[in-house]
């Protein structure tokens, strides 16, 4: 090989060509569509999810503002106005939520109910010890009967006269707070744990997965009961209970994502160019999982709310006087046959909330990953 065959190129040897030439390619029309914009366009088409999102927004706003503007406090007791049925201005003219209650009395005692009597529904005789007692089934205005004619408890009151409206929204606030906080922390732990486990693999992964197996092996119920016994009931200990095992699902999903993407060429290319582990994990691999993370977090909120109300229902949850939806349901259960409104409203709110979150999650999943549609 002679020397003149190898010649070092300098800057003068190279020149830009075509820089001043006209490009005859067609120009792009419209704006580029990013990941989130793309997802939003698909999400908008799903009517059920949009409605669900609006319902969630409504419930969240009510939970924040309704207790602030309510005329009564959540601990305020009106002891003489125990268990009043719902009464809402305007609606009462239509005959619903008018504070009425149907009771059965002896006909001779009708005089006691003269002022509050609204309607006599049925007359019948009741045979008791061979005596025929004339009975009446009448509809009375419970508010006037109890001397609360000027009050409007929109959702009624409980057995010690606390306003259900304000207690319900305050309970929703606490349920949502527990749901959101626990899911947020679970996501953080799950993402970090899953990333490390999935990215490094090998021995690190093996040890980390064994730890998960041990923690996940203890039944949730047993663990939460022990934990509440240990920590005492309260919002903080509740969030901690939900964190104990809640992050495992998220970390598994993240780990699977890392196993899928870490051998891709673009990751290799970036590593060759000297990218650090941290950059590879957080800049290059993790963003692939943003869709599934959001979807899974959305599904985790209703299950956290469910766990909270389940434990509260068993008497392990939030302590009185602080309400949560589960506490209200448990309190209402005792009056189910006589005063169903105490169960009805909390049941309605929790069912609506969970339904909305599930539908919203379905919509998000379809929007982020159209391949999963309808599964």
């Amino acid at each position, binding site marked *: 090989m002679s020397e003149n065959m190898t010649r070092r190129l300098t800057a003068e040897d190279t020149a830009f060509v075509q820089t001043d030439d006209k490009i005859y390619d067609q120009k792009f029309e419209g704006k580029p569509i990013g990941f989130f914009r793309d997802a939003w366009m698909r999400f908008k088409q799903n009517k059920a999810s949009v409605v669900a999102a609006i319902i969630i927004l409504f419930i969240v706003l009510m939970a924040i503002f309704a207790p602030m503007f309510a005329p009564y406090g959540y601990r305020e007791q009106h002891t003489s106005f125990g268990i009043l049925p719902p009464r809402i201005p305007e609606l009462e003219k239509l005959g619903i939520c008018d504070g009425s209650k149907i009771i059965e009395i002896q006909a001779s005692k009708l005089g006691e109910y003269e002022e509050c009597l609204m309607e006599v529904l049925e007359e019948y005789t009741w045979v008791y010890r061979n005596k025929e007692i004339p009975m009446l089934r009448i509809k009375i205005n419970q508010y006037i009967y109890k001397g609360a004619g000027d009050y409007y408890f929109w959702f009624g009151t409980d057995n010690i006269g606390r306003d259900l409206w304000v207690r319900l929204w305050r309970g929703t606030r606490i349920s949502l707070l527990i749901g959101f906080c626990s899911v947020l922390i679970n996501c953080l732990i799950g993402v970090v744990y899953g990333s490390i486990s999935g990215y490094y693999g090998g021995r690190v992964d093996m040890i980390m997965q064994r730890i998960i197996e041990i923690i996940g092996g*203890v*039944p949730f119920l047993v663990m939460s009961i022990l934990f509440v*016994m240990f920590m005492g009931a309260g919002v903080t200990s509740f969030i901690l209970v939900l964190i104990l095992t809640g992050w495992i699902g998220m970390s598994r999903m993240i780990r699977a994502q890392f196993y899928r993407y870490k051998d891709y060429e673009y990751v290799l290319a970036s590593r060759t160019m000297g990218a650090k582990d941290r950059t590879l994990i957080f800049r290059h691999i993790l963003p692939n999982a943003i869709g599934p993370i959001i979807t899974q977090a959305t599904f985790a909120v209703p299950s956290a709310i*469910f766990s909270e109300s389940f434990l509260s*229902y068993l*008497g392990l949850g939030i302590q009185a006087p602080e309400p949560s939806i589960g506490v209200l349901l448990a309190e209402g259960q005792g009056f189910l046959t006589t005063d169903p409104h105490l*169960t009805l409203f909390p049941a309605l709110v929790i069912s609506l909330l969970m339904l909305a979150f599930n539908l919203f999650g379905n919509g998000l999943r379809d929007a982020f990953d159209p391949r999963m549609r309808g599964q």
Partner: protein
Amino acid sequence: MAKYIVKRILAMVLTLFIIISISFFAIRLIPGDVLGEGANPELRAAMRARYHLDKPLIEQYVIFIKNFLSFDFGESINLYPRRPVFDVIAEKVPLTLVLNIFSLIITIPTGIACGIAAALKKNTLTDHAISTMVVFNVSVPSFVFASLLQYFLAYKLGWFPILLDLKAPFMSGAQLWSMVLPVLALSFGGIATITRYMRAELFEALSSEYMLLARAKGLTQLQATVRHALRNSFIPLCNVIVPMFMSVLSGSMVVETIFNIPGLGSLMTGSISTSDYYLTIAILFVYSLINLTSVLVVDLSYGIVDPRIRIGGGKTRE
């Protein structure tokens, strides 16, 4: 395989040991006096001696563990005074078990049938109706559903008794009739879970290539579906059905409270609220045992149902 099972059982024993140890110490932290505040001093001293409460905590723990290892779970303190915990639990288990088994008998076939129907008729009216039902079932908590059933079917319409009929003999017709509502309430969520899995799995199996091969070999669509697609889609169901037993069991705690059923669930809530030390620990132990066993059964059944999955190889597991 044998080595793997032994390893898993040892891990299980260790977990159980940790659970009872933690519960032993955790339950002491509940505020309130176990022995009742009004009792006279002599009686209190006698009771403290009987339940070993007069010794230092560590010594109590050693005695407790020794007894536990010889299957003596101690005596109930408050809820059923001086009765052995084992007997109390053994008395409550049948009712809870019957309830759970009935619930599973309803849940599994219904769920599978709905899932199959939805997958075969994908994107038709049937599918949409079933999917709506699934979302609804998943969303409404079992205790809300139980209250609704109780109010409308039992109270308003009077078709069923409001509470469980305890006067009727065990498993008699009248008692079974009063069990219908609690069983329905328990089955509600499980049906949705199974339907969802079954639908996804079967749909995936139906669109796979071995189905095409089976059709190419000359099988009818029905034959191919029954012999190939269905069998393959049953495998992942193991993963759902066995843990379901545990979730039904914990769900039954609330349902038992609502329908006034004296089963394991209400025993648990009762024992915690009276801080009945040994009874609570024993019940937590029973629940953990059932849960851990079900997880083990799932893992083992994988290898049996689907030979492609090897257990214990370490490297082949994802």
